[in-house]
């Protein structure tokens, strides 16, 4: 076993993120009840892009770093039952860069992951459906889909 690569990398990510992160995003380790930070479990938020049906809201995520991170990707989840064609009922996101067997590379940092997920919000991948309600609406009744997404945006509305 060489040094604790996971923790070392997470600290690096944290420093990088503080120096430079995209506007409207946040990502930070969760606080434990004693006031210390749990470096292996983070919370994050992704703003919906302006000019899309996802706008004016910030969507919460949890990020957990498995023991063999960065060899394996972090697990990133929306809240359960999040409405999006490529999000499983459990909140797990179906995105190739988050999949070890597909496009995950240890060099991918938190910033690119979150930007990738932001991109996915408004451009779902019709070829990998992960939940029935959003996928069906997205492919068959766009109006209903838009309505539901906007309703969800209300739920996660930015406090101005």
């Amino acid at each position: 076993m060489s040094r604790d690569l996971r923790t070392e990398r997470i600290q690096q990510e944290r420093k990088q993120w503080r120096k430079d992160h995209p506007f409207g995003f946040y990502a930070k380790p969760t606080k434990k009840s004693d006031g210390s930070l749990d470096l292996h479990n983070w919370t994050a938020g992704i703003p919906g892009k302006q000019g899309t049906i996802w706008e004016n809201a910030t969507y919460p995520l949890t990020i957990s770093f498995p023991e063999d991170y960065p060899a394996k990707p972090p697990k990133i989840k929306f809240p359960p039952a999040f409405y999006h064609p490529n999000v499983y009922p459990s909140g797990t996101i179906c995105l190739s860069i988050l999949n070890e067997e597909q496009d995950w590379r240890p060099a991918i940092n938190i910033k690119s992951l979150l930007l990738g997920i932001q991109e996915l919000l408004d451009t779902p991948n019709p070829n990998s459906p992960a939940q029935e309600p959003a996928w069906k609406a997205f492919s068959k009744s766009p109006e209903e889909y838009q309505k539901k997404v906007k309703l969800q945006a209300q739920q996660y509305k930015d406090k101005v």
Partner: protein
Amino acid sequence: MAVDSYIKKMFGEKSSQFADAKVLLVGAGGIGCELLKDLIMMNIGEIHVLDLDTIDLSNLNRQFLFRHKDIKQSKSKTAIAAVEFFNYKSKLYAYHGSVLDTNLFPLSFFKQFNIIYNALDNLEARFYMNRMCLYLNIPLYESGTTGLKGQVQPIYPYLTECFSCVPKETPKTFPVCTIRSTPSKPVHCITWAKDFLFSQLFSNEDTNTQEIDASEFTNEEEAEASKKEVNELADLKKIIANEGDNEIVIKIFEKIFIADIERLLKIEELWKSREKPSFEQIKDYDHFFKDINKEYLTTCKDQSTLEEILKTFASSLLRLTDRFKNNENIEFDKDDEDTLFFVMSASNIRSLIFNIPTKNEFDVKQIAGNIIPAVATTNAIMAGFSALSSVNYFLENDNINRVVKSKMVFDSSSTDKVVNSSKLIKPNPSCSACSIVKGIITIDLSSTTLGQLRDKLIEKYNYGDDVEIMTLDSRLLYDFDLEDNLEEKLTNFINDQTVLLINDSDEKFDLIELYVLNSQNSEIILPELNIPLKKIKPSENENDENDDDDKLLVDNEENNDIKVTVSLDDDDDLVEEQPPMKKRKF
């Protein structure tokens, strides 16, 4: 005394030191029992034996200090009582408890020993003892066996490779989808039968449909199919509770071996690059379920024909059902025949469907019971080498350069030697344990704030700017972005015997590790440490040529260490064989 003069003859005058030594033996199991006997025969002054376990029937075939009457007794206490009639001078002490328990065994407990012998059965305790020995700079003799293989590694902290220097293989786990949808090896089917089927049908915990992590499946149809299976199994539980014997067997069989497989077959994706499961080998099943006999498994234990497998399945299923109806809490136990035969027959039926070789009782017992074969002779040999390796330390401890010339012993992969040896290797420069500078900090946790600790650290170690304070389990207590905790007392975050990791924010210095000892004294006492600068991108063997330490282990022509090579023929040559792991140059 005969023993004294014999030892003197073997090891020379310096062997009188044995009587002054105080050693700790961690573990009184297979290797531990043997090692205790060896240490006693060396006339070691004080031997402290520590084990958390009690004696089990299955120990008796190799842990020769224990008898049938000792079952359920403390291993360490029974072991020292059992050697009482030996003619020995050693003082013996037994401790019953976990070595990881810092209340029972704080750092100060280990400090009293000259040498520590590991005779453990798990990685966690081995890593832990390794760390303790690094803090206290105590030689550690690490040993282990599996079946006919074994190994002894002397660890001289910071001089030779420590237990964490080489990555250790962790037990294999299988992806959910392999177990549930696409098995390809017998062990996949056995895991399915034991961890999924058996526990779903008979575990008494409310069948809380465990949420399946959909991300583990590569396609969503597969995840969906898997979820359905679980729900329907919950329904089967009702069948078990209410229906008659024959219905139970047929319904369960057709659900798990027909319907579930048909559902998988519909997912075309899965079978593009794999062989499809097929019912060909089990197609006559109903024929064998005509007259079911619950006593079948007590009479027929062979599993070579379909008839035997199916009848064993029916018989074990019904026996378990009866026990379940009597509200018995059934757990899989390799020595409980009903559970073992159920798991064996179910996994074999699944194997037939997926065209995987079936397994017999012995194999299934070993795989499902996670049995690591233990051989008394291997244990005895390795315990002997462990004791012998430490003799080298006693005899040469006035010259540490000679001590690090001792050898590691391991089983041989060549055919003419049973045992082989290899030179000890230099520590791994990026080892997670021994490459990190360590020290002990004495501090009053209840009166000191985190802020005071931070200031003291910066002052003492000349950190330019600021520090990060973390615990070994990756809780971040302080860095420049987390200032809320500065006024808090340390008792809020850490205890006596916690390990802290300190980094400087400039990333100029290397990480350090501090072991916390709580004290009543208001003064913070920090250790004197020589903190190295951070290595810039560690390219490992950079300075190998001009490294002074290289002198340490060269010229081993005149070989004063104990020869540990055992040879089947009379060939006395010492053949250096590479140990089965990555080797670093000394």
